[in-house]
């Protein structure tokens, strides 16, 4: 398995650390309430198909990445810097 780091290029999976669902980027407001925080901290989708995940290129440039991966085929369809994804989210909100 290889991941195309936007900075480093195509690299072996061993250089990366897997964190989990990219929903971690959508942090609720401090006063969003118990349900929103419970959802953010504990509840995750478990799709058979396309999902967005956070990976870190810790054995490379150190950047956090949003990786779009199909959990059935393991095909990776997109990789973006988490920094850019988060900036776009801020702009949109």
């Amino acid at each position, binding site marked *: 398995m290889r991941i195309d780091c936007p*900075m*480093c290029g195509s*690299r072996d999976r061993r250089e990366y650390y897997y964190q989990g669902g990219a929903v971690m980027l959508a942090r609720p407001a401090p006063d969003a309430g118990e349900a929103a925080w419970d959802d953010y901290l504990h509840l995750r989708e478990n799709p058979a198909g396309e999902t967005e995940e956070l990976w870190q290129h*810790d054995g490379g440039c150190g950047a956090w990445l949003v990786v779009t991966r199909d959990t059935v085929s393991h095909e990776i369809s997109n990789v973006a810097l988490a920094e850019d994804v988060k900036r776009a989210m801020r702009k949109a909100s």
Partner: protein
Amino acid sequence: MVELIQISPCAGLLPITLGSVTLDEQDVGRLTSLSPFGDASDLSAALEKAHGCTWPKPNRSTGKDGGRCIWFGRDEALLIGPAPDMGLAKHGAVVDQSDAWAVVSLAGPGAVDVLARLVPVDLRDAAFKRGHTVRTQVMHMNASITKLGTDHLMIMVFRSMAGTLVYDLKGAMAAVASRG
């Protein structure tokens, strides 16, 4: 007063020559981590004026022996050689890391074959030319590898891992050398 004796990270371990490849420690002078405040253009200009090397693009290095700047990760570069001009601190974070890294050179025909056994990146000349640099791993150690010339690479790992680096490289050098 206690007299402190400076010991280099690979003291007593190097040099080693096996077959056509030699591993040796490099005394490269000062190591300074640079991280720009925002855009790197001001830092690049200050760097060029003071040390004759510009801000490197990802996976590239600039300058030469005695004043080299290598890309060192996302929004980070490492100035190798000179004591940093204090004017750089206006444009970015300037952090001395001179004692934090073990720096070795691997040179001679077959040097790339040695690293091919330890590093998951293609370092042959066709893909990785003089002046190219990568952040990657040597076995399980996070490393920085820069090509100084054909069959001539500079490898850096955290100082605490100097012994492991020499051990792993020595094993790979012996394996390559035994193939003749």
